[in-house]
């Protein structure tokens, strides 16, 4: 078998290992997915009435806010899942098993790609659950088949970027505790973007930051796809660029540190 063939086989072996871990230790997955659900309920039922009126739409109120906040909540879901990635990778690094893998003739990157694929599955699982809850609350996506296909692609791309970033955070963390804290800023970024309120209501400097940081384009593309409206070229370009840049950065840092340890 070729080197690439082995890399794929080893990756699928490592993915199986990750899936078993999730099975054995389901509380982490449940917590990672449960949190955005709680956030969604909180924002819709506690703040939704008031914030919805402030959106300046035709109807306003809780229903309008549900439609506005759901795409943002999907990105919060991904930000939450990738915290689990950092914790999982850091936990792995503290275990003796990693040294065993490193003394075996296997595709080394498969240890990391196993984590990446495992987190991708968690990410889609989380998105499905949160979207399901939003629909149950009355959210009605206007996306057609092509939009849904685009949505899957965009979510895969965004997850991929954020997951590789947190793989790097997990691998460079000194301990599991610091690995669980370091990706925290990813949870704050949607707040400093268009997840909960439109960015044009923010002070100029903050608005500038909000418009160009990764989460606003992520959210805007998702929002357009779910609403079945045209995706803005600038947002799509920023989404693709940010995702690939984060993935590349994470991959390079993670690989270097994995071989060094």
């Amino acid at each position, binding site marked *: *078998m070729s080197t690439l063939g*082995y890399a794929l*086989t*080893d990756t699928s*072996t490592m993915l*199986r*290992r990750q899936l*078993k*871990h999730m099975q*054995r*230790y389901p509380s982490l997955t449940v917590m990672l997915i449960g949190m955005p659900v709680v956030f969604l309920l909180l924002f819709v039922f506690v703040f939704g009435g008031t914030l919805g009126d402030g959106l300046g739409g035709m109807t306003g109120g809780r229903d309008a806010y549900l439609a506005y906040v759901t795409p943002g909540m999907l990105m919060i879901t991904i930000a939450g899942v990738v915290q689990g990635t950092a914790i999982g990778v850091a936990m792995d690094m503290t*275990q*003796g*098993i990693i*040294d*065993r*893998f*490193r*003394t*075996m*003739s*296997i595709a080394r990157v498969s240890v990391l790609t196993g984590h990446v694929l495992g987190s991708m599955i968690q990410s889609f699982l989380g998105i499905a659950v949160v979207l399901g809850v939003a629909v149950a609350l009355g959210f009605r996506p206007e996306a057609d088949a092509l939009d849904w296909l685009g949505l899957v692609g965009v979510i895969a791309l965004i997850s991929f970027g954020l997951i590789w970033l947190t793989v790097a955070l997990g691998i460079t963390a000194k301990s599991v505790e610091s690995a669980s804290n370091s990706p925290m800023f990813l949870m704050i970024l949607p707040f400093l973007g268009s997840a909960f309120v439109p960015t044009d209501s923010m002070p100029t400097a903050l608005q500038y930051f909000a418009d160009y940081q990764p989460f606003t384009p992520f959210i805007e593309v998702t929002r357009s796809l779910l609403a079945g409206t045209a995706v803005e070229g600038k947002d799509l370009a920023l989404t693709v660029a940010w995702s690939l840049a984060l993935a590349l950065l994470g991959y390079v840092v993670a690989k270097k540190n994995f071989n060094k340890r």
Partner: protein
Amino acid sequence: MTTTKPLAIEARNLTKSYGDKVVLAGIDIAVPEGTVYSLLGPNGAGKTTTVQILSTLIQAGGGEAFVGGHHVTRDADEVRSAIGVTGQFAAVDTLLTGRENLQLMGRLHHLGKQETKRRTEELLERFDLVDAAKQTPATYSGGMKRRLDIAMCLMGNPRIIFLDEPTTGLDPRSRRTMWAIIRELVKGGTTIFLTTQYLEEADELADRIAVLDGGKLVAEGTPEQLKRMIPGGHISLRLHRADQVERAAQVLAASGSDIDQLTVQVPSDGSVDSLRKVLDTLDREGVEVEELTIHTPDLDDVFLSLTGQTTTAA
């Protein structure tokens, strides 16, 4: 390529430092195929560092090393496919069951479904882990974890096995089991590189022993050669009164005495004859003995005679 070397492991002038701290100050190792080589030394001597270099986990600062005829850094992947490593801390996946851990290894060695299954069951049987196969290692005893660890290491049929302090922290019975396992492996022609803190263990298992201290090999040879370099053991006596300590030390030609502790050390090979002589002499002198212990040569004596230091200083 140097694949035709009769040596399974060869290292020349291996060095390693972390910052200013020199861990290995140039060591040479030669292990013929199918033999057991033991690296004996106290904590911090550089045993684990040596294993890490030879098993491709870290790079040496200087010198060259070949394992299975392959260079450890240039042909790391070839080295990896020839070796199995069992470290000081069990390298098992704590969230997978014993059986799943073995299956994971089988898949990573690309053994195929049938072969993975067959070897998994065979190793579970051989290492007495059948009953625990469905449990995760969290429920295992120290000895069981170590057995699973070695079983995982054997899944890929390695020709050369590194065992880094395989019995540290095990109770005497698990230690015996581990020794039996190692002997079995040697019978099958596997080359074993073993590190240990216990002279007894090296003596039991190794064809050759090298004593590592402070990053240098201070002695190397067969167990018999090494033991000849070590003075015999001694008898330690505890007496009742201080004046008797002086008297006893004199008549017995003691190697040491401590008036405060009321103890006297007498060189002895520990035989019944020599014991009887000592006690007879004390009887004649009217010295009463409160306590007597026989001390057989151990790592401390090896170090005392080879380096002039006790292991506690290392």
